[in-house]
């Protein structure tokens, strides 16, 4: 009899237990995420040239821009026009480069290549389609007039900006 009472009491206690509700909130807002997909490596096809081209033994840096909502951001990618770190150079370095769309998550993003604005070493693209866009950067540095680069470590920086419209 006592055991039965105990069991019933335990059941009643269980039924009267207080439950708490914990709310998880979140908001979806426009945002831009800049992702470094591939860091670049300069190849040295000739003594006077450093290049990120695959044929020259280099690796082209790839930057990815993720936007949640269309037409809230523009991408601005700058290819290098100077070394951030290098041995002492006595001559002028000629820089060339190009920024182009490498991969897209929406076919219509392919139009960025035709609608991009280029000035100096800057490429600006209005991100008019939501999703992810990969941009590859080509960069070449020529030293003087066929002058050999001195030995040492050379580093350059690609700048990827995501600017709200």
């Amino acid at each position, binding site marked *: 009899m006592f055991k039965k009472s105990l069991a019933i009491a335990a059941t009643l206690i269980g039924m009267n237990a207080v439950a708490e509700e914990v709310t998880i909130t979140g908001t979806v*807002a*426009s*945002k*831009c*995420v*800049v*992702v*470094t*997909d*591939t*860091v*670049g*490596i*300069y190849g040295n096809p000739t003594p006077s040239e450093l290049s*990120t081209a695959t044929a020259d033994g280099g690796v082209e*840096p*790839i*930057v*990815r821009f*993720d936007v949640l909502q269309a037409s*809230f*951001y523009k991408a601005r990618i700058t290819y*290098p026009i100077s070394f*951030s*770190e290098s041995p002492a150079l006595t001559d002028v370095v000629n820089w060339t480069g190009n920024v182009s769309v490498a991969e897209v998550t929406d076919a219509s993003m392919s139009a960025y290549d035709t609608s991009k604005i280029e000035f100096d070493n800057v490429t600006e693209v209005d991100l008019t389609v939501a999703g*992810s866009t990969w941009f590859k950067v080509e*960069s070449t540095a020529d030293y003087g007039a066929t002058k050999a680069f001195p030995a040492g*470590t*050379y*580093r*350059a*920086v*690609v*700048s*990827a*900006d*995501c*600017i*709200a*419209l």
Partner: protein
Amino acid sequence: MRYIMMTVMLTLSGYASAHQWMPTYPELRPSYVAGVLTTKMELFNSRNDVKYYEILVYDKDFNPMRFATQEKIVEVGYLKRKNIDVYIREEDRDKITYICSKSKLLKGTGSVTRVSSRICSKIK
């Protein structure tokens, strides 16, 4: 419960690191100091090659503008989030257009060519 999961590689390539800066359109509100406006920004760092970010404020032509914050160069660990209060003068309210965060690359480290990321939010 133990899950056996295979992560889908969205990029289908190897290395990836990212930097996020929110909100896109911050709102300026009066601070506890008269004549000073403030806004709260959030920085999320998923770049394992970057630990420091610089806070910058620009006008519409990307000319630097004066502002105040607790740290102009903040340290944000990998996969960490940080809230940053930015203070600007009320008289500069009409000129200031962008509040940006820019990754700071340490000299002498990393691979040959690195990517510096900067994300700018716009004050409407």
